[in-house]
C-alpha cells in the first residue's frame, strides 16, 4: 500500500530505457538504428528478468488449462451439465475428464468408488479394480482433478476482473483528483483515506454480504476495496506529469483539459499502475479465495478453490488431499502473478536496477 508511485515517469517522452540509446550514441548510429518502440523496449527489459519468465510460463499454463478445461458447465444442484460429451463422443480438447459438478456415485465405470478416495492412477500402481482419479474424489463423490481444473476458470478471470475494476475506477478518481486539484482533490482523496484506514479484507466481507452473497459480488467487493491504492498511484503520477513540458505544449496547441488528461497524462502514468496491478491480481485471487473460504460467496457447487477448501476443511486430518490440492492450486496462481509483477517492477523501475 505504498502511497508513492512505484515508478515515477519512467516512460516520459516515450523513450523508455532503451539500452545503448543514450546521449553518447552518435547521430549516425541513431539514424541507422530501428526507431525505439516503447512496447518492444519494455518487453525486452521485462524478459531479462528470470522471475518474469517463470511467472509468464506458469500463467500461460493456467490460462491454457482454463480455456481447455472442458465444455461450459451449468452448476445446477443436480450437477447437470449442458453438454458433457458422452464416452467416445468427439468433444474437442478438454482437460477435465468429468463434469466437475456431478457426483459420480453409481455411475458406470465407477464401481468401488468411495467418498474422498485418495488419488488413484493405474499406471502408478493403484489397483486396477478401483476407478482412476488423478487427484481422488471429494466428499460428494466428485472428481477432484476436474474440479481443480475448472477452478482455474473461476479464479484467474476473477483476479483479473477485480483488479481491472479497481484500476479503471481508481485511475479515474486519482487522475481527476490530481488533474483538477483543489476542492475535488481533497474530497476524493479523503474518502480514499477512509477506505485505506480499514482492513481491506473486513471491508470486502461487509460489501460482499451487503451486495448479496455470490462470487460476482465477492469480485466486485475485492475490486472496490482495491480502488484507493490505484487512485493514489494515479494521482501521484498525474501530479508529476502534469507539469511536464509536453503537457504544456499540448495545452498551447489548444487541446482540451480532458483530452490532455486522456491522451497525454494517463498513458504516461500507466507503468506504475500496471506493475502494481499485476502484483494486485495475486492478492485479489487470495482475497477472493479467502471470501469463499469463510463462506460468503454463495453457491458452493461452483468449483472455486477457496470454497472447495472451506467445504472440506474438517476432513484435513483424514483426507488431506481434498484440502491441500486446491490449496496448492491457489498458491501456484498467486505465485505466478507475483513473480510476473516482481519482474515487471524490476524491469520498469530504474531505481531498482542493480
Amino acid at each position: 500500500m505504498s502511497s508513492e508511485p512505484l515508478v515515477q515517469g519512467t516512460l516520459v517522452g516515450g523513450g523508455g530505457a532503451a539500452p545503448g540509446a543514450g546521449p553518447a550514441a552518435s547521430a549516425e548510429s541513431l539514424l541507422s538504428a530501428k526507431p525505439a518502440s516503447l512496447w518492444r523496449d519494455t518487453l525486452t527489459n521485462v524478459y531479462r528478468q528470470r522471475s518474469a519468465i517463470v511467472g509468464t510460463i506458469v500463467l500461460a499454463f493456467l490460462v491454457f488449462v482454463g480455456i481447455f478445461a472442458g465444455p461450459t458447465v451449468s452448476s445446477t444442484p443436480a450437477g447437470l451439465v449442458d453438454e458433457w460429451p458422452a464416452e467416445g463422443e468427439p468433444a474437442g480438447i478438454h482437460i477435465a475428464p468429468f463434469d466437475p459438478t456431478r457426483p459420480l456415485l453409481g455411475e458406470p465405470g465407477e464401481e468401488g468408488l468411495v467418498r474422498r478416495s485418495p488419488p488413484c492412477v493405474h499406471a502408478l500402481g493403484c489397483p486396477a479394480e478401483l476407478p482412476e482419479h488423478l487427484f481422488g474424489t471429494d466428499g460428494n463423490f466428485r472428481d477432484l482433478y476436474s474440479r481443480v481444473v475448472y477452478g482455474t476458470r473461476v479464479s484467474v478471470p476473477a483476479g483479473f476482473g477485480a483488479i481491472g475494476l479497481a484500476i479503471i475506477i481508481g485511475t479515474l478518481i486519482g487522475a481527476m483528483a490530481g488533474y483538477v486539484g483543489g476542492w475535488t482533490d481533497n474530497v476524493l482523496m479523503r474518502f480514499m483515506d477512509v477506505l485505506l484506514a480499514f482492513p481491506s479484507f473486513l471491508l470486502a466481507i461487509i460489501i460482499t454480504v451487503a451486495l448479496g452473497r455470490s462470487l460476482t459480488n465477492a469480485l466486485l467487493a475485492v475490486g472496490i476495496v482495491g480502488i484507493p491504492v490505484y487512485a493514489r498511484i494515479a494521482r501521484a503520477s498525474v501530479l508529476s506529469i502534469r507539469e511536464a513540458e509536453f503537457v504544456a505544449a499540448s495545452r498551447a496547441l489548444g487541446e482540451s483539459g480532458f483530452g490532455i488528461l486522456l491522451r497525454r497524462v494517463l498513458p504516461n502514468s500507466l507503468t506504475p499502475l500496471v506493475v502494481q496491478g499485476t502484483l494486485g491480481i495475486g492478492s485479489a485471487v487470495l482475497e477472493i479465495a479467502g471470501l469463499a473460504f469463510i463462506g460468503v460467496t454463495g453457491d458452493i457447487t461452483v468449483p472455486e478453490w477457496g470454497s472447495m477448501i472451506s467445504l472440506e476443511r474438517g476432513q484435513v486430518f483424514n483426507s488431506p488431499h481434498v484440502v491441500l490440492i486446491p490449496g496448492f492450486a491457489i498458491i501456484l496462481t498467486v505465485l505466478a502473478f507475483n513473480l510476473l509483477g516482481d519482474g515487471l517492477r524490476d524491469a520498469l523501475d530504474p531505481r531498482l536496477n542493480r
Partner: protein
Amino acid sequence: MSRYILRRLLLSIPVLFGIVFVVFTTARLIPGDPCRAILGERATDATCNQFIKRYGLDKAILPGLYREHSELIFRGDQVVPTLVDNQFIAYMGQVASGDLGQSIKQSRPVTTMLIERLPTTIELSILALLFAITVGVPLGLISGYRRNSAADVSTMAFANVGVSMPVFVLGLLLAYLFSIVFKGTPLALPPSGRLSTGVEVIPLVQVWGLQSLQGPPRAFLDFISGIYTVTSLITGQWNALLDSFRHLILPAIALGTIPLAIIARITRSSLLDVLGQDYVRTARAKGLREQTVVIRHAARNALLPVVTVIGLQLGGLLSGAILTETTFNLAGVGRSIVEAITGRDYAVVQGFTLVIAVAYVMVNLLVDVSYSYVDPRVRMR
C-alpha cells in the same frame, strides 16, 4: 512533537467518523429482514413489529431512508423530519457516550463481548508479528549480505511462496503436519482451540481475591485475564502457560508467514542498498572488522524501511486473523465479526469494526511517531 501528535489525532477524527458512517450504512444495506434473520423465519409479524420497535429499527436509517422488512425504501417527504431523528445520529450519540450498544443475538453489551474476544486476537497477532520479525529480519540480513548464495536464493524462493500462500491453506497444512504426521513425537502440537480440555487459566480477579471489584478496573483485569499467556505467566500457572503457548504456535506461524516473507524481502533489498553506499566503503577502508561494518553500520540504517513495513503489516494481520481464527477455531474478534455480519447483528459489527479502525489508526500514528525516534533525520512537524 506533541503538536504533531495532537494534529494527527485531530485529523484522524474525520477518518474515524467516515469509517463509522461507511460501516453503519453498508451493514444496513445487507439485504433481508433483520428480524427474521435473528428470530428465525417463522417469527410472526406481530413479534417482528415489536422486535423492530424495541431496537429502534423502525426509525429512518439515514434521513428519509427506511427499511421495511426486507426492502429499503426512500421517502422524499420524510427527509427533513428525520434529519436528526434517525438511527445514525442516535448511534453516534451512543458511541460518544462510550456505549457500543447491545448484541441483538446474544442480548449482551458489545463491550462485554469485546473484553472477551479482543485478547485472543491481540495475543495471536502479537505472537505472529514477533515470529515474523525475529525470523524475517535475520533471514533478510543474511540473504542480503550473501547475495546470490544458496542461502539467499532459497530464502527468496521461500519468501515468494510465503507471500503467495493463503493463510487458511498454510494453517490447515500445519494442522495436518503437526497433529497427524508428527503424532506421538515431541513435535506434535494441538491444531485448534486455545487450551486443552481440563486445563484452565484462573482469571486475575480470582487469583488476587478481587471478585468484588466492579467497573472499568474489573473490565481491565478481565481483559488481561483473556490474554492467557500473560495471565498465566504473571500468576505462575506454568502448566496453563505451556498449554496456551503450545496452542498458539501453529496459528501464529500461519498468520505470521506472509509478514515474515515481506519483512525478509524488504530487509534484504534495504541492506543491499546500504551496503553500496560510500560510508560503508569508508568504514571498511578504515579497517573496521567486517562484523562491525555490517551489524553496527549497515544493518542499523538498513532496518529503517523495515520499521515502516512492520507498521503496515499490523493492518494486514487483522485481515489474516479473520481467516486464522476460522481455521483454528479461535473465538477472537475476526471470527466474531464474520459471524455478526452474516447474522446481521448490527451493533456487534459496528462496535467491533469501530474498535478495529481506532486501533488501526492509532497503530499507524504510533509507527509514524516511532519513526522519528529510530531515524533522527526525520523530524515531525
